[in-house]
């Protein structure tokens, strides 16, 4: 699609030729994920997580559709339909439910690795800004979908999660409270809220699938990035997606799915909260209410604001939480360094790892019960999060001296050893001359 040497699609049979002239779907697939999509030859394992994310989206949609066949979205019946009907009565229902529950967690693990890959290697930079922004849209949609899905079993954490998260909207002046009541269809989460959450929880994954197509489309215009961040220069820099990256993605996906299967079978509730096995009680909040682990860093930012300052602390918390994600949309313009890859940015690289540590600390604080020292730690970590993006990153990109970049992708992988580029049994390079590094 993106490079002149991309192999054109050639129908192999009369039928495929007939089809190609009427509906060139196989041609599109071939150009997108087949031999017709040239990919930089030097991708490392961090580049496998996009493919994995696609696998987990598929797992979630398949298990979700089946679970919906047994689930009852009523305040009286939801808890029983999940915990008795699906978990005990439906054949293999326990497996499907655990697969869906842990599938959500693993989807987020994969996405977080995918996002941090993008942060380290500067995948958000020109010409891939829209790829990044569409990715953030997918991430926001995932958060909404996961939140509404967590409400469906109508346990204590479901109920109070719904109460707290819709409570975010009440922080906005004037329109906040009417907006919250409108979103819930009542003054507290109840039947109306449960049914609409179920409807949207079913809808949004398909919206995500649609945005994923846009994400991949936008990616395939400039083509995939790579660990050096150096642009592809000629055919020697790329390999066809199939069979090279289908094989590599396939192997790494199987390895990762093994981990997912192990957790699903042997520790299916490890990533969940036991209180969600208590039916929802609108009159009693659990003593320690936390969202699912993948929201902990944002929950910590929300809880960091405890003092009114011009605006109420509550509004600051909600604004900061939303801003911490919306900020990401501006990242291509916050980090102005022309060097994409963190591997060639010694100062950036250190701050990147500090950010990773910071987010892990935020996650810990968000998931732990409130105590004075944890609140202080969370406040420091939340402040650093914003400091990183609003101050450190612009300064680093202005003053940092990057390391010299390799002349080309091929150059970086061959380290100047001409023999490496040669076909087996030959001494010289395959064709033309391979640039040699000093």
């Amino acid at each position: 699609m993106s490079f002149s040497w991309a192999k054109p699609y050639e129908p192999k049979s009369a039928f495929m030729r007939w089809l190609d002239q009427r509906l060139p779907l196989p041609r599109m697939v071939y150009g997108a994920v087949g031999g017709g999509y040239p990919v930089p030859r030097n991708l490392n394992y961090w580049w496998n997580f996009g493919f994995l994310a696609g696998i987990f989206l598929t797992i979630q949609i398949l298990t979700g559709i089946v679970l919906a066949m047994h689930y009852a979205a009523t305040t009286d019946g939801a808890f029983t339909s999940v915990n008795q009907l699906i978990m005990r009565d439906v054949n293999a229902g326990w497996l499907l439910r655990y697969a869906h529950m842990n599938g959500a967690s693993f989807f987020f693990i994969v996405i977080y690795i995918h996002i941090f890959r993008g942060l380290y290697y500067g995948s958000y930079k020109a010409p891939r800004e829209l790829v990044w922004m569409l990715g953030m849209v997918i991430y926001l949609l995932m958060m909404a979908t996961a939140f509404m899905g967590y409400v469906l079993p109508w346990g204590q954490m479901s109920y109070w999660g719904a109460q707290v998260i819709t409570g975010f909207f009440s922080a906005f002046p004037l329109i906040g409270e009417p907006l919250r009541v409108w979103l819930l269809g009542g003054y507290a989460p109840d039947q109306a809220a449960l049914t609409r959450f179920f409807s949207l929880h079913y809808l949004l994954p398909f919206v995500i699938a649609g945005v994923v197509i846009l994400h991949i489309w936008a990616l395939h215009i400039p083509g995939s990035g790579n660990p050096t961040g150096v642009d592809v220069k000629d055919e020697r820099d790329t390999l066809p997606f199939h069979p090279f990256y289908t094989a590599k993605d396939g192997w790494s996906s199987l390895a990762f799915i093994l981990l997912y299967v192990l957790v699903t079978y042997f520790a299916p509730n490890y990533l969940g909260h036991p209180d969600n096995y208590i039916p929802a009680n609108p009159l009693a909040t659990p003593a320690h209410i936390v969202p699912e682990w993948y929201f902990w860093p944002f929950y910590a930012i929300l809880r960091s604001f405890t003092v009114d300052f011009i605006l109420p602390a509550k509004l600051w918390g909600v604004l900061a939480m939303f801003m911490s994600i919306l900020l990401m949309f501006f990242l291509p313009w916050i980090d102005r360094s022309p060097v994409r890859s963190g591997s060639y940015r010694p100062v950036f690289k250190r701050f990147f790892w500090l950010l990773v540590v910071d987010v892990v600390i935020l996650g810990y604080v968000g998931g732990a019960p409130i105590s004075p020292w944890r609140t202080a730690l969370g406040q420091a970590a939340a402040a650093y999060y914003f400091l990183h993006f609003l101050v450190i990153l612009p300064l680093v990109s202005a003053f940092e001296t990057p390391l010299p970049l390799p002349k080309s992708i091929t150059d970086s992988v061959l380290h100047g050893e001409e023999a490496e580029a040669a076909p087996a049994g030959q001494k010289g390079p395959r064709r033309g001359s391979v640039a040699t590094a000093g």
Partner: protein
Amino acid sequence: MATQARSAEGSHITGEEGGVRRRDFLNVAAVSFAGVGSVVALMPLFVQMAPSKDVLALATTEVDISKIQPGQGIKTSWRKQPVFVRNLTPKEIAEANAVPLSALRDPQSLGERTKPGHSNWLITLGVCTHLGCVPLGIGEGENKGPYGGYFCPCHGSMYDTAGRIRQGPAPLNLQVPDYKFTSPTTVEIGAKEK
């Protein structure tokens, strides 16, 4: 451009040179009509989200308070939300009145939050004004927090004996719903005082 349009439209032109043509009016009218129509057609999709009449109908709840001793409280439910009915002890009332209003985030005296002649009855929603959790402190032996009122376990908001926010992220005091005493031992929550 104008002359071209005019020659194309021939004898149908009614406006002055460069003025509004009949076609312009038709365009504006058609687009406006379609626009207003679309908005009206979307209205049902919007209003279906709002609370339905049966939800709104649960507007009042009657509570018998005769068995609540001073220092005790009960949790009841109104419009699917928890309501705290608390019989304050003289000590708690004195504590609440001792606080200068200037020290409060949401300044209100205990007198403004109770009914005249019933100043020992503190009736509030049991909904933390931060993000809607149910604070602890109404039940026997629950954590009342450092101000002797309520403590929200979710994000650590602390309320005093008048249900006023004293510390933590919540912006406002616990909301006092509309209610009236229908007899010395009965209150009707949701009903306005005449």
